[in-house]
């Protein structure tokens, strides 16, 4: 068929993602939608066609669970959701603990029917399992199987019924024209479509399509093996497609499900088998479909043994044959998250890729909202395509991280778990010094950041039990009491922190000030030399980002933001640049390295290496100015994220080592300690009640709830101002609080320390739900060595957000008593901020 000449939006790919996209766009009022598909409908030959189609609801990630819950609801509404229940079984004690943790996550995200089963209870639900192999199971009644092809068909039909959609099947995209950084038209085998908005929903082929426009979608096709055996005698009289709960055999990285009279066994246990998108065979040249590649038996053999052990009655039945065995292709990404949103390279070009069946309709809804108003209901920041740095987009990085990540699909992944492959990538100028100090490096935005320094081990003795030692392996993993010792040393004396991962933009031009004022909640038009901390909002008042801006000149501002969301923040700023060119943004990240110098003796150290005035009156809080250190002209900014007197010192990167050495040498006399990010980002921050993006600050919370509303709102307009004003006028639905753990002693007698994302409940274990339907959960958790308590932050409904209120936190199947220590943003440590202003 011939494609239309012109479209309001072109969606490429009619799998479950593209089909959901066209429906949600149509629902939100888009018309002249063209859906291009190179394959044949209803099964175009991508991953949708061979997906196992089951939906387990709980993920430790709030964002992924939100997408999944929304998707399950949509599938239900479409009538394609078969609620079978699902059980994740454990073969090891570690896995049983993990299942307990998953129960907690399900409670955090409002999935209440979940429960742990004994092996016998599993057997009652799944009579063909050998329960002697397992220790128990995690049961979710709402787990189900969907007909994803039918769902796609219905979504397309609905869009067509609204008169919004033209579907062009068997049309292959051959090129994408980009002019002035904006997508303009799509060339296809059946003609050219003019379109200013294009969505790539091409699954494993997405990188190839994006490349046509000069954009990058860093995913790789990878093999997921599955076999279908049958006919199973005990299924022969079942009328349902699936009459038994789906089983995930977590420890062997496998799943098993009934499939009519058959039994499907899938695996994530085998070696990662990656493909290059251009190598995927054509539809014509494929024996089954392009994404159903020939089975490689030897990779699956060990899994057969595992399946046989768990389901001997079915898998061991000599009359049950292996009817289909495939290497199915799916999409893997370097960090395991989907890739969605407008590409940073090309305006109007959107990615909807690396999305699994379980989350597709929910993500499509999110993208459609994002495209329509810029204000998705679910915060997609973890999946935002703009999160990637250039090194993330290299084939080497993608291959390394997806290979490493594949076997973690069902893995027990620690919240702090570090990647091992393709490191190190970015090194601070002081890296060798830090290595010599025994730095334990964690990766952030590709940077190797010391999380703590083993050279500080002697500090543990100095501070004794104040370092809050941990005995449990889980909480000691990716942690050291040295972190708390460094914290205490900094509070007592002075610490030096490497902050190289900061992302820095210089904004210049006559329109710079007005431009920033339009983006930022707080006033940016301040005297030169002042530093401003400010959140950024979206139009509906959701919190988009938070960062600091230094005014360095009338028309020169330096924006400093965290590495984690730095590239996404860059896109927010870039997208908002004035069309008249009156302001420019320059990414100066690679020009500057940053060191933090904080503690009561910070001034002593700094004044030892500079003749510039660094006195309290000469260099007041929240100002910045040049300071010459050992012959290097640096920019120092008096600010603190740790609650101590001190500076962030911005140094030209090639002179960074010299300044580190100078500070180090001057610090000796003051017993300066190298201090890691464990203190900077967790312990010191929590004691001060500072909020972090991605933890406390997300689109679904507002500044009033976060306790960040200032007494007045600036007069000039900024994004989200109207919504913010409205939020200030009504009572918040929740209030961010700091809680202390009253007694971390578990039933076993061990002391347990929460790591974040656990549900906050009443002392009786009842969940807390606010007026907007959100559950209370721990947004951040960590030691408070200076206050002697384990600290949690959580949004609580107003009636619970009362200081002294006694609540509980659910952790590994037990409740621990907690107390609301602070309702709002008052610091728990040094509430008057005397230290910062000393």
């Amino acid at each position, binding site marked *: 068929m011939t494609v239309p000449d012109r479209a309001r939006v072109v969606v490429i790919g009619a799998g479950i993602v593209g089909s959901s996209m066209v429906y949600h766009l149509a629902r939100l009022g888009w018309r002249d939608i063209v859906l291009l598909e190179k394959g044949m409908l*209803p099964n175009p030959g991508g991953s949708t066609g061979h997906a196992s189609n089951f939906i387990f609801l709980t993920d430790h990630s709030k964002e992924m669970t939100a997408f999944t819950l929304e998707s399950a609801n949509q599938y239900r509404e479409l009538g394609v959701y078969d609620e079978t229940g699902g059980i994740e079984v454990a073969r090891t004690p570690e896995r049983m603990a993990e299942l307990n943790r998953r129960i907690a996550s399900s409670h955090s995200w409002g999935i209440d029917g979940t429960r742990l089963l004994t092996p016998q209870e599993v057997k009652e639900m799944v009579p063909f399992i050998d329960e002697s192999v397992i220790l128990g199971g995690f049961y979710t009644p709402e787990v189900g199987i969907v007909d994803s092809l039918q769902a796609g068909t219905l979504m397309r039909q609905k869009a067509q019924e609204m008169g919004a959609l033209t579907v062009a099947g*068997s049309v292959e995209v051959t090129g994408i024209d980009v002019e002035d950084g904006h997508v303009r038209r799509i060339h296809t085998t059946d003609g050219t479509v003019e379109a200013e908005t294009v969505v790539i929903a091409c699954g494993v082929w997405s990188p190839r399509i994006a490349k046509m426009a000069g954009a990058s979608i860093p995913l790789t096709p990878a093999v997921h093996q599955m076999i279908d055996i049958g006919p199973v005698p005990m299924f022969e009289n079942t009328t349902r497609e699936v009459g038994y709960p789906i089983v995930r055999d977590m420890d062997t990285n496998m799943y098993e499900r009934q499939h009519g009279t058959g039994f499907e066994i899938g695996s994530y246990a085998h070696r990662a088998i990656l493909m290059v998108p251009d190598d995927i065979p054509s539809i014509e040249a494929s024996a089954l479909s392009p994404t159903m590649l020939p089975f490689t038996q030897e990779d699956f053999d060990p899994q057969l043994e595992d399946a046989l052990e768990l389901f001997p009655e079915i898998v061991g039945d000599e009359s049950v044959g292996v009817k289909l065995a495939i290497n199915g292709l799916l999409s893997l990404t370097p960090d395991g998250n989907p890739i969605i949103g407008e590409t940073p390279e090309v305006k109007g070009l959107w990615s909807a890729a690396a999305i699994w069946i379980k989350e597709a309709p929910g993500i499509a809804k999110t993208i459609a909202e994002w495209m329509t108003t810029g204000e998705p209901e679910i915060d997609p920041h973890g999946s935002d395509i703009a999160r990637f740095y250039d090194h993330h987009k290299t084939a080497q990085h993608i291959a390394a991280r997806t290979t490493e990540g594949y076997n973690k699909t069902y893995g027990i992944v620690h919240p702090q778990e570090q990647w091992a492959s393709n490191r190190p990538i970015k090194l601070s100028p002081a890296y060798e010094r830090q290595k010599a100090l025994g730095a334990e490096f964690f990766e952030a935005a590709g940077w190797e950041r010391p999380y703590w320094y083993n050279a500080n081990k002697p500090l543990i003795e100095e501070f004794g039990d104040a370092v809050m030692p941990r005995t449990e392996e889980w909480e000691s993993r990716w942690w050291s009491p040295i972190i708390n010792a460094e914290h205490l040393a900094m509070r007592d004396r002075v610490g030096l922190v490497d902050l190289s991962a900061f992302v820095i933009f210089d904004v210049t031009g006559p329109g710079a000030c007005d431009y920033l004022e339009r983006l930022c909640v707080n006033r940016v038009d301040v005297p030169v030399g002042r530093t401003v901390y400010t959140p950024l909002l979206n139009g509906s008042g959701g919190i988009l980002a938070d960062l600091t801006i230094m005014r360095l000149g009338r028309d020169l501002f330096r924006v400093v933001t965290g590495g984690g969301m730095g590239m996404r923040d860059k896109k927010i700023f870039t997208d908002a640049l004035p069309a008249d060119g009156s302001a420019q943004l320059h990414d100066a990240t690679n020009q500057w390295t940053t060191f933090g110098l904080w503690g009561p003796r910070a001034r002593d150290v700094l004044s030892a290496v500079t003749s510039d005035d660094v006195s309290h009156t000469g260099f007041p809080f929240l100002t910045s100015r040049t300071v010459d250190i050992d012959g290097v002209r640096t920019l120092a900014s008096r600010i603190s994220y740790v609650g101590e007197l001190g500076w962030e010192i911005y140094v030209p990167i090639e002179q960074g080592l010299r300044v580190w050495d100078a500070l180090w040498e001057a610090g000796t006399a003051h017993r300066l300690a190298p201090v890691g990010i464990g203190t900077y980002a967790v312990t010191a921050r929590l004691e001060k009640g500072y909020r972090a993006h991605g933890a406390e600050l997300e689109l679904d919370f507002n500044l009033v709830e976060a306790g960040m509303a200032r007494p007045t709102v600036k007069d000039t307009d900024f994004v989200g101002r109207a919504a913010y004003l409205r939020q200030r006028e009504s009572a918040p639905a929740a209030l961010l609080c700091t809680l202390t753990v009253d007694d971390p002693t578990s039933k076993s007698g061990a002391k347990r320390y929460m790591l974040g994302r656990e549900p906050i409940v009443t002392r009786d274990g009842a969940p807390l739900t606010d007026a907007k339907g959100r559950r209370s959960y721990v947004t951040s958790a960590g030691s408070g060595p200076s206050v002697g308590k384990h600290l949690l932050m959580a949004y609580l409904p107003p009636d619970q957000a009362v200081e002294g209120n006694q609540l509980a936190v659910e952790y590994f199947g037990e409740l621990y008593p907690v107390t609301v220590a602070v309702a709002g943003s008052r610091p728990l440590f040094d509430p008057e901020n005397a230290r910062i202003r000393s």
Partner: protein
Amino acid sequence: MSILVLVEHAEGRPDRLSLEALTVAGSLREPVEAVVIGRWSTELAGGLSGRGIGVVHVVDDPRLAAFAPAARAAAVVQLAAARSASTILAAGSDRGNEVMAHVGAKLDLPMAANVTEVLGGDPLRLVRQRWAGSLLEEATLDAPTKLLTIAPHAVAAADPAPGAAPAVETFSPDLTENDLRVAVARRLEPDRSGVSLADARVVVGGGRGVGSSEAFAELEELAGLLGAAVGVSRVVTSQGWRPHSMQIGQTGMRIAPDLYIACGISGAIQHIVGARAAKRILAINTDAEAPIMSVADYAVIGDLHQVVPAISAEVRRVTGR
């Protein structure tokens, strides 16, 4: 030197595929001789007139009345030696390939099966079929006697030219016990009723899209109305929905009806090679771009479970059946 062509025949008529082999032989610029096993008749003489044959060697040996592949091969080998044949040709039929394989084995010479083109030269350059014709191999055959079978329908059988009937000579082969030990001992009559797939003028074919054994009733109803036979693709037999005897394809039956109605058949190579000889193909498929469309003449895009019953109803309405 001559080319010896093994001509198969039935009821006094030369087999069409053997005529095709004769056509290829005639293009090779060497005298063509034929060998006919069985009773010579004026009818057969007529059928072989004007086909460029110099001599027909008739092997009318009662021991060869029942088909005995090794014995036939022995006769061909002995005759070829007697006539100093440079090349022995047969049709690429089941029997032709089988007898020529025996000839190759007896002479310990290579044999090229299902040749589509003889390009000439010595060593002989030729083109032959692989994958039942989905792929061609250009090959070189280096042997004192070239043994070939000609792929069915690789060339059209030339119309007979006016001319003299070939000379007829009889040949009496020397057959051993071993040559004769494998022969058709008896025949069993067909055990199926209904229209034979091989002879049907119309075939209704069903593939994966039919979905189940039961759903074939829809196809069988239409076939009944049209006096057609029902055929299936390989997936249908491997699913156990229908027996292999109904399978059309590389490893099943080759059909050549006037109309082949392919329902829910995607058109894998395996299947298409069996249906290629149909004069017309009508595809009924939900998918307008299925490979079957590249060989179909007509198509209906739609769900066969709706389309086929609708056609049956319409046939009933129009014919009053």
